[in-house]
């Protein structure tokens, strides 16, 4: 059961938003367009958590070079998230392990959660948007 945060001194509501990413970048547009939602949610001063599960963890892999496929490299935007006060980035441990990834492969700091922790985090949210 989630509790809404009290509004800052009569201001608009602050809700806990979780943005769930389960898809790899470039093969589909979901990763890119999901990031655009995160940035907008941040400008609305909402409490945003970004989670990466299954192939979503690939979105954060360092060293993306997209010149050869003729597509814009949007991975630098993950590093810009902290400028928008979006610092709650979580990855699913099992998804990382399954793909042979460690935190050192990723381009931003993340918190690594196990399934139980991730499930509990989800249960605390007011709004969950999946892309």
């Amino acid at each position: 059961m989630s509790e809404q945060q009290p509004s800052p001194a009569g201001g608009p509501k602050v809700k806990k938003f979780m943005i769930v990413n389960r898809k790899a970048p470039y093969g589909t547009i979901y990763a890119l367009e999901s990031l655009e939602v995160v940035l907008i949610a941040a400008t609305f001063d909402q409490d945003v958590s970004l989670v990466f599960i299954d192939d979503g963890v690939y979105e954060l892999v360092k060293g993306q070079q997209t010149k050869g496929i003729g597509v814009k490299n949007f991975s630098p935007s993950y590093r810009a998230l902290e400028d928008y006060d979006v610092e709650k980035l979580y990855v699913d441990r099992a998804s990382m392990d399954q793909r042979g990834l460690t935190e050192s492969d990723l381009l931003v700091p993340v918190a690594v959660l196990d399934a139980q922790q991730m499930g509990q985090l989800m249960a605390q949210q007011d709004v969950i948007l999946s892309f």
Partner: protein
Amino acid sequence: MLHIINKSPFETNTLDTCLRMAQPGHALLLIEDGVYAATKGSAAEERVREACTTLKVYALQPDMDARGVTGKVIDGVTLVDYGGFVDLAEQHDTSHSWL
């Protein structure tokens, strides 16, 4: 919380991931191609039967009817119509559509 899955358990690993993370007492609603997970005799049956012990599992009947599988619904999975889908969304504070 209401988890919603719309993909066949044989097309993606969504069901497995959701079941890893869903907490006891949560609800799982299978819609669209997700309803195939609610059918007896498939390799997903055991996972779903087990899920029924900790979660309340539902399947959207119109989607099962469309796919000709309503007769095979696993015991323990509750069939709902779109009105029931709305009720579930109302009853649970948050829903997570696993896309």
